[in-house]
């Protein structure tokens, strides 16, 4: 559960070239094969998750007591689970839980972390000191333990797991935003905006936030990867998705009991997590390279 901290890209330089920074970034992203493949994989996963009812002939909660823990076959490509449900179908539906957990928890972390980081960086002084020390304190505690405690407190459900992960990931965004703000704050155009009497919130949103965005995008992508693993871990501990709704983590939880008798129950949901998280990591790496103005 290593939380990856993106190395902050330098603030976007004044636009001199004819090409807009966004276009330039997109062009460079398109050149990175790994990132493009990852992007395609993610889009396919999203499509599969959305279209699951159309693709699969089975109901993800439908039990078949005469076909319990059957190995992969023509009928059930990925085999069946401990109460006779089709594993492929459950993986497809489980993608909904994992993907939404990744995206929503990161959205929560951004929604809290970015404003707090802006305030810390912009205000400075005691407020900054307090926020920064508290952020340090949160980052010092084991990520999973914080998430477990929060999820247990809120009560087990997928929504609560997302909130718990989101809150736990918040310090990453506070720290990132604050760092960016500090480096941009001293720039001439921000000084100028302040000199002509723009209100603080306006400066923060119009002049500072856009400069934070690239680094934020990279961090968000990488944190989605971390969050998907965190959701799987919480569900693995029973603190996420509630039965009979499927999630990859809870499928692994059930599979534990049948490792030697029905290994397919553990292998396939784990592979699904792996492919998804790897894709987000590759995309995040690609984005970082593409958005970094220093790189060629």
């Amino acid at each position, binding site marked *: 559960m290593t939380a990856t901290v993106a190395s902050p890209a330098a603030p976007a330089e004044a636009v001199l070239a004819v090409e807009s920074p966004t276009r330039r970034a997109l062009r460079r992203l398109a050149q990175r094969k790994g990132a493009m493949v990852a992007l395609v994989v993610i889009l396919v996963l999203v499509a599969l998750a959305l279209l699951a009812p159309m693709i699969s002939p089975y109901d993800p909660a439908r039990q078949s007591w005469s076909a319990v823990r059957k190995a992969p076959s023509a009928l059930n490509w990925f085999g069946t689970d401990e109460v006779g449900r089709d594993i492929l179908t459950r993986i497809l539906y489980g993608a909904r839980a994992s993907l939404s957990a990744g995206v929503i928890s990161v959205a929560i972390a951004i929604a809290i972390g970015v404003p707090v980081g802006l305030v810390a960086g912009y205000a400075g002084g005691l407020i900054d000191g307090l926020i920064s020390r508290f952020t340090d304190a949160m980052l010092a505690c084991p990520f999973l*333990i914080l998430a477990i405690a929060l999820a247990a407190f809120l009560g087990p459900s997928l929504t609560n797991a997302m909130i718990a992960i989101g809150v736990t990931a918040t310090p990453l965004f506070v720290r990132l935003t604050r760092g960016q703000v500090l480096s941009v704050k001293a720039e001439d155009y921000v000084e100028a905006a302040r000199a002509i009497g723009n209100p603080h919130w306006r400066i923060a949103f119009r002049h500072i936030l856009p400069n934070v965005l690239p680094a934020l995008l990279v961090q968000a992508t990488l944190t989605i990867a971390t969050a998907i693993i965190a959701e*799987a871990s919480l569900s693995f501990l029973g603190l996420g998705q509630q039965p009979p709704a499927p999630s990859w983590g809870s499928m692994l939880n059930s599979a534990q009991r049948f490792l030697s008798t029905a290994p397919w129950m553990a292998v396939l949901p784990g592979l699904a997590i792996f492919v998804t998280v790897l894709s987000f990591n590759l995309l995040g790496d690609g984005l970082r390279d593409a958005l970094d103005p220093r790189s060629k």
Partner: protein
Amino acid sequence: MLTLIGKRLIQLLPTLFFVSVLIFSLQQLLPGDPALIMAGEEKDPEVIEQIRRQYRLDQPLPVQYLYWIGGVLTGNLGESMRLKVSVLDLIAQKLPVTLQLAVMAMIIALVIGVTAGVVSAVKKDTWIDYAVNVFSLWGISTPNFWLGIMMILLFAVTLGWLPASGYVPLWEDWRQSLATTIMPAFVLGNSIAGVIMRHTRSAMLQALSSDYVRTARAKGLFERRVVLKHAMRNALTPIITLGALEFGTLLSGAVLTEQIFTIPGFGKLIVDAVFNRDYAVVQGVVLVTATTYILLNLLADLGYILANPRLRA
């Protein structure tokens, strides 16, 4: 320089204070009543009352906090309700285990991460670069617990090469000790190898494009020598700094890995304590882990500053 260290040390105090408040309030958030769990299957109301009194669970939270932090400041982390052992003793018992695991994991991570990083930097933008990239990312892309389960399935259950679980201390039987820790160490090391690889790669790229490497090349030195001797030496400082940082991550990253492999270290101790609502143990272990993490961070920062004279100003 000294004032800088002093400043960083002073900053440490509020952070540690927040850590203590955070973990204290955190475990208060946990639902469930420890006295009720402690009371066993029979749950006699009188026994429950008595436990509440004994562990001051009947006092208001701030009072409980003061008792706890007062103890911490005098070197007393309290007593495990479940095991009736002092938390300090428990930590002393578990620390060597987790430390051994973390050191082994770090070695594995450095071997994989640095090798992969150097190779992909030297072979930048070739298929080898891409392959190494994917390879190094797989570590952070798999849930620790799943990789652990898969390794048990393969090496212990199917092939029978390695013991599936358990732990033997190094000083008792070092070979058996390595055999029991190699799988969890690999799982842990694997999860940070990717981070190390990324940083090695960019540090190497920077070093390779620097003037002195160009000079070395111009002098007609063999490429291998250029890479290993000149570029790597310069790339090493940030890697070591990162290593210190990630070492802290490892200490806390062992949470589920130890659970899967039944390694009696910090991770298992804390997860069991969380689920048993053994408050003093949760607080004590998180406090020690967090403090270690913060100190390692500080050391890494100082190391970085020392290595980069420009930052000393």
